[in-house]
């Protein structure tokens, strides 16, 4: 237990209590509890006293226990019951105070759920009591005494809503991506593709670097950025080994990989987890972006930034060598299972990009590899266990937290602290983009997206309803900005891997990260205001 851990634990738990118990003007109890959970999660995600996926699991636990309509606080069990008796004519006599504003009464259904009943007839019988007739109003009925009770007024989500985030279509989309990636890794498809893609780039350093960046970005668009970086390092390290020790080009190659992996993740919906958070937030607002639409938006952006980064790397680390040794051994695996893997991969991607023709949604197509690959024996038990399940927990925890932020009105209250309408579309994207960029450089991109997206979508939805603001384009813009935060080794796992090789120093990474990052932020804002609104409404 070091100081940081103890401090993180203390601050997180203190934040949870403060959010719940410090009364805030204009916030109801559900919103206060959500605020407590939000502060707790933010502190735990930033200071990491426990792993970030464990924090995401705790978020769901806290929501189920404290915020759900079956939990400790908002359960119908906690509501006081009224004194009732059955009159001789069969009507149910209850205190008049049990009637709500619309003349309805609330019943406790065996301590599990709440039922709202509007009586067919109501007559006053004196002593502040009324006789009710209606469906279910008999001697068995458990009438709740106070129609204003928190279990009624909170409008809490059922606990299954929070659990349900783990099976949301966006999670299935990512699971499909995991299945494809696992098959690609298992049969070396990614390595084989790299070999084929690299060969036309020859032996001149600048071209080799471009080839490596294009391969990395392409692979990381479909696989995890981190796994892609680890794989490409096995390709790059021998190349680095063949370059003279004093040649700056060593650093150029070692940095090209994480930079390209981070940028490549933006290109498709399954490229990197922040995209999932953004898609889930947009889905909540009734906007569905298909795989092909996302690619039409993001691929030009990715290419532009990748070319800029390539040029920048060559300027900063000018190669001295004339020729490079690029030797990649191996050949395509031609076993039956490998061929099946290639075919399923191709079929899935093809179905994804042709959604306009067949109308089967992106998240439904994603289940094809999940089911078919194990059915054909391409993936086995061990491969399925090898998926990055913790990433799915992170995304689910993020979606779940977003759910409460929205339904308890906390998000609306939080953004009410700033007058957004005076900022306009450009101002909103800049504010969220810059904050997102700064945060994402210091903590996990997925967590940054989790904390920023519910707020951005709330502001965006409010502005979009007035008009003159393109919600989807702005959210994609903010998501892209989060992905290009790569100034420090701790900014992204690909950066950490590149740093761990010992080829580069932190200042090299920071130089490239700042230049490419600032250019990327500017580019994302331009795309978000000019080009993307032409594609999504």
């Amino acid at each position, binding site marked *: 237990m070091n100081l940081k851990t103890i401090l993180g634990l203390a601050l997180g738990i203190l934040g949870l209590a403060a959010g719940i118990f410090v009364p805030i003007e204009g916030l109801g109890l559900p919103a206060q509890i959500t605020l407590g959970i939000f502060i707790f999660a933010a502190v735990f995600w930033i200071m990491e006293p426990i792993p970030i996926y464990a924090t995401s699991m705790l978020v769901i636990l806290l929501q189920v226990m404290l915020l759900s309509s079956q939990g400790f606080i908002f359960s119908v069990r906690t509501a006081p019951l009224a004194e009732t008796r059955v009159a001789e004519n069969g009507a149910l006599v209850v205190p008049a105070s049990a009637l709500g504003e619309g003349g309805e009464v609330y019943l406790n259904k065996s301590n599990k759920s709440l039922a709202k009943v509007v009586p067919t007839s109501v007559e006053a019988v004196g002593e502040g009591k009324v006789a009710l007739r209606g469906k279910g109003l008999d001697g068995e009925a458990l009438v709740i005494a106070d129609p204003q009770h928190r279990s009624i007024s909170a409008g809490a989500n059922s606990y299954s809503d929070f659990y349900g985030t783990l099976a949301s279509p966006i999670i299935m989309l990512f699971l499909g991506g995991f299945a494809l990636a696992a098959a690609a890794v298992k049969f070396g498809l990614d390595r084989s593709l790299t070999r084929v893609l690299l060969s036309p780039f020859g032996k001149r350093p600048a071209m080799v670097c471009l080839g490596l960046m294009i391969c990395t970005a392409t692979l990381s668009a479909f696989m995890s950025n981190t796994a892609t970086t680890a794989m490409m390092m*096995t390709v790059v390290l021998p190349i680095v080994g063949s370059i003279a020790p004093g040649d700056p080009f060593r650093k150029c190659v070692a940095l090209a990989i994480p930079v390209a992996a981070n940028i490549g993740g933006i290109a498709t919906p399954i490229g990197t987890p922040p995209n999932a958070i953004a898609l889930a937030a947009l889905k909540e607002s009734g906007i569905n972006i298909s795989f092909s639409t996302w690619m039409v938006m993001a691929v030009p952006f990715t290419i532009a930034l990748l070319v800029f980064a390539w040029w920048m790397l060559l300027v900063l680390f000018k190669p001295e060598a004339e020729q490079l040794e690029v030797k990649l051994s191996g050949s395509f695996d031609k076993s039956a299972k490998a061929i099946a893997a290639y075919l399923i991969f191709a079929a899935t991607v093809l179905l994804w990009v042709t959604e306009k023709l067949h109308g089967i949604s992106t998240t439904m197509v994603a289940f094809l590899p999940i089911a078919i690959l194990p059915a054909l024996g391409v993936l086995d038990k061990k491969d399925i266990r090898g998926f990055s399940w913790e990433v799915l927990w992170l995304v689910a925890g993020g979606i779940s937290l977003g759910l409460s932020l929205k339904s308890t009105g906390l998000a609306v209250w939080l953004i009410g602290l700033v007058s957004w309408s005076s900022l306009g579309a450009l101002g909103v994207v800049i504010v969220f983009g810059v904050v997102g960029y700064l945060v994402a450089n210091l903590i996990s991109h997925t967590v940054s997206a989790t904390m920023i997206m519910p707020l951005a979508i709330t502001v965006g939805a409010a502005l979009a309803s007035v008009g003159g603001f393109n919600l989807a384009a702005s959210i994609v813009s903010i998501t892209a900005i989060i992905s290009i935060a790569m100034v420090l080794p701790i900014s992204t796992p690909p950066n950490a891997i590149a740093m761990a090789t010992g080829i580069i120093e932190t200042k090299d990474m920071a130089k490239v990260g700042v230049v490419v990052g600032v250019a990327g932020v500017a580019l994302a804002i331009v795309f978000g205001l000019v080009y993307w609104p032409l594609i999504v409404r």
Partner: protein
Amino acid sequence: MNQIYILCIDDEADVLEAVERDLATLENVFPLETASSADEARGLLERIKQQGDEVGIAFCDHVMPKETGGEFLSWMEATPYWKKTRKALLTGQAGLEATVSAINNAGLDFYVSKPWTREGLVQAAKRLLTDYVIERDLNPLPYMATLDAERLSAHAYKKGLLSDT
């Protein structure tokens, strides 16, 4: 993160000094602990285990007064906590029989014959430590700069040890 130690056991002080000098390049990441007998080494191992730390390689001299290196490495091999530790025999005079027995019973991974070259010893240590980190499925990042980064990243990628979080 657990500390991974290199352990060296020899009854001759100058051999220990030579190993210490030759493996100085690894010292920052893999601290070296030395012992002059099998008993002393057991005490060291107990302390390392108490701290929750690990031993990546044990270099052990074969010809020692009370207990031979082969016997000591066999004991390590039979102790679950030290089973994954890479075991190297460090000697110029073990007979064929003793060597064969060490390979068969002590899970011997490497044989260093005296006199060794610094280059050879460092290379062997790096290779064995890489094997150890891979077999333990440890997070490879702290070790990549010191060991075989290519093999470590290949393993991490195959096993999915690193994810996008």
